[in-house]
């Protein structure tokens, strides 16, 4: 391995490769920061350019863009309540409230620190434990994915604060949205009203942008803009010992969770971020503070999504199995470059694989230095009067939504969810619960039914397989404990 690392370093420090790394980081960073422009899209756009490069340069380009785009989605999520990439969805929940409290700089600092740490630890796992992690990932099939999704869904209890009923309605709404479209297992049409555009379902990104970004623009447009806006001076401090002490346990758990979820071929970094945010709420002593703008609420999803993005490289490099949309495109690129992704890639092309490892490591380190000037740029944008900034945000949201799959209907869906989000906000509705339902709903449904097809309809498949049995038992405990606590509280109040 040491040999491989040296080989990787040698390759990366060729001037041309370094230039590619820096350029790719810049592109990925900017793309990730813009809503609607995802890492997948950037990798696809640059695929033809990569044909013209030698193999090593090509994969430094593609994997660096991937890593950088997962990183920067949090900037607009924190500053404008507009997740720049789906992976940053959970970062909105505590990041934006901190901005509203005038602590945008602190929020960004926490996000950068957690992202980079998550990414670096993720790469170190990738470099040292890939074969072991890959064999763990292979233990997961439909019953296990279903159990994982159920465990994630039970967190609605802690996510919705005191408003449990609203939380359940929210998850229900999210699950309902996830059922729209063609039934993935039988092909039957569900709630499509014979519209071909709805066949492929409601895409996650328009809903996300609508619920968070558009609703916020609507809300702000009701405010009196003639009052001089509070000028936020954003000074970012990336490492703060006091905050680090506060978030270190959350980060530790989230990174491990992020890697574990990331290596699974069936789920990606967005799910990892959402699950990790949920788990942070569940483990916290003060779950009611989540959503009001606390450092743990940023550290959890940001360290998890970057760790997961690195984790997704494990099945790609060791088995040739893509764990996400972006890694699927990178898999295609391997083939176009005449390489055979699969179990032999690491032993056949160690120079390439180790160069990828080393460049991923460097991106995660370099990005700490490079994010400061970008954040200064973004914070200048914050000084614009909202009468100008609001419309610009809306236009970016529209372009970004359209760009996802060239669908005009998606724009209308996004605007509709903007209105819905606006009214739900006013009702103090936990929007996180809806997002939880949309992210985990399709996994839970499809994997449940596929598992039953595997067992010819026998429900015991979920309890006879050890991983799924453990996950489902945890889910059960997670549901029962709050009830017991409530009952105890009730009894002691009676006594």
């Amino acid at each position, binding site marked *: 391995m040491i040999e491989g690392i040296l080989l990787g370093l040698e390759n990366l420090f060729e001037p041309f490769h370094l230039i590619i790394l820096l350029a790719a980081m810049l592109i990925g960073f900017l793309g990730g920061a813009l809503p609607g422009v995802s890492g997948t899209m950037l990798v696809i756009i640059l695929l033809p350019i990569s044909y013209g490069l030698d193999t090593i340069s090509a994969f430094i380009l593609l994997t660096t863009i991937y890593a950088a785009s997962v990183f920067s989605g949090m900037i607009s999520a924190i500053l404008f309540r507009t997740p720049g990439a789906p992976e940053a969805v959970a970062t909105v929940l505590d990041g934006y409230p901190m901005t509203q409290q005038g602590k945008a700089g602190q929020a960004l600092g926490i996000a950068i620190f957690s992202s980079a740490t998550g990414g670096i630890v993720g790469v170190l796992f990738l470099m040292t434990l890939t074969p072991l992690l890959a064999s763990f990932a292979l233990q997961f099939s439909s019953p296990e994915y279903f159990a994982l999704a159920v465990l994630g869904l039970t967190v609605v209890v802690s996510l919705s604060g005191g408003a449990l009923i609203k939380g359940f309605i929210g998850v229900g709404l999210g699950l309902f949205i996830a059922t729209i479209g063609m039934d993935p297992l039988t*092909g039957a049409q569900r709630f499509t009203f014979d519209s071909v555009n709805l066949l492929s*379902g409601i895409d996650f990104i328009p809903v996300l942008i609508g619920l968070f970004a558009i609703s916020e623009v609507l809300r702000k447009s009701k405010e009196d803009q003639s009052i001089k806006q509070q000028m936020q001076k954003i000074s970012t401090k990336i490492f703060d010992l006091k905050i680090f002490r506060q978030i270190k346990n959350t980060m530790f758990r989230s990174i491990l969770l992020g890697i574990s979820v990331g290596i699974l071929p069936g789920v990606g970094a967005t799910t990892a971020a959402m699950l990790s945010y949920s788990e942070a709420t569940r483990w916290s002593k003060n779950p009611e503070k989540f959503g009001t703008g606390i450092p743990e609420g940023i550290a959890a999803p940001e360290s998890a999504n970057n760790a997961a993005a690195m984790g997704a490289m494990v099945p790609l490099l060791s088995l040739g*199995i893509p764990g996400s949309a972006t890694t699927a495109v990178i898999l295609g690129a391997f083939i176009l470059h005449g390489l055979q992704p699969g179990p032999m890639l690491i032993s056949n092309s160690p120079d390439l694989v180790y160069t990828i490892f080393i460049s991923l490591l460097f991106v995660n380190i370099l990005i700490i230095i490079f994010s400061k000037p970008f954040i200064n740029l973004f914070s200048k944008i914050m000084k614009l009067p909202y*009468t100008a900034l609001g*419309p610009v945000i809306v236009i970016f949201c529209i372009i970004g939504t*359209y760009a996802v799959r060239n669908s005009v209907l998606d724009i209308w869906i996004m605007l509709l969810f903007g209105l819905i989000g606006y009214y739900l906000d006013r009702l103090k509705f936990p929007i996180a619960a809806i997002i939880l339902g949309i992210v985990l709903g399709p996994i839970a449904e499809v994997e449940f039914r596929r598992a039953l*097809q595997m067992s010819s309809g026998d429900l015991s498949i979920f309890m006879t397989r050890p991983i799924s049995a453990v996950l489902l038992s945890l889910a059960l405990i997670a549901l029962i404990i709050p009830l017991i606590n409530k009952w105890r509280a009730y009894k002691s109040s009676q006594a």
Partner: protein
Amino acid sequence: MSKSTKIMLSTILLGMILVLGACNGEDSQADYEDYPEQQIDVYVGHGPGGGTDTFVRTVANLIADDIDADFNVINQEGGSGVVAMQNAMQQPADGYTLIGDSAFAVTTAAGTNEHGIDEVTPIARVQSDTYAIQVRSDRFEDIDELIAYAEENPGELNMGAVGTMGIDEITARRFMNEAGVDMNYIPMEGAGQMHSDILGGHIDLMLEEVGPTISYIEEEEFKPLVFFAEDRIEDFDDVPTTVEKGWDLTDGVERYFLAPADTPQEIIDILEDATQRAMETEEYQEYEENSYLHLRDGWMGSEEFEEKLEQDIENYEEIISEIEGE
């Protein structure tokens, strides 16, 4: 409403109009000699990174070099290509909208695709892939052992293939019928999930081409048990074919370009020739061999392929009504 709010709302409105306006492609009078004068959109109904998408991007890239064109590949997943087809058909038939597809005959026969063969003109077929039944190497020794096991334990084996009511599922079900065995059909979301389920031992066999799994086969992780072909495949002399086994099953996935039917014939000709030249390039040949797409001759010109599609649609209509009748 304050003045600034009004300004803001009208700016939002203006922005929306501008963006929505820009979303509709502009009409242009095409002059065939100068074709192409603008970007050519290719609609693909499958996700980025998959077999159909890789085919479109590779070939489009080569055609682009040849006729100095600029291609824009639009991925619109859903309904085995139906969504992309529907959206492509709403664009003007001026040669700047093409469709890269692999499931047209099946979706048309199944009725999910409403735009039949009268509404499209094939440009050319580029690839004709070969299915195989594959298992994890330690699961079954050969096809006879698999069939014998399935006969003794009806409904126990899990057979994976990608998607629902596409050519994969139909071929998988035809295989079960022809071989006279009862297995569970497990629709997979993608090839990656299927390979990982085979490796993990969660499903027993899969319907898959050898291109995507060749490195597993070389590592002796996977083993093809039978090829869906008439003659034995070079490189796999010891693996029997369906025809040898007495099963009438040789269809595979075909990948091709279509254009809306009203596209001027001159443009179809230009593209057909360019596609053929693209396939003859060294780059394509290399890609074809790396991906094991060279097992069958892929090329079929516009007219010949149109006839084949018509025939295929008829055949699949019959097969689907048989499957649904059960």
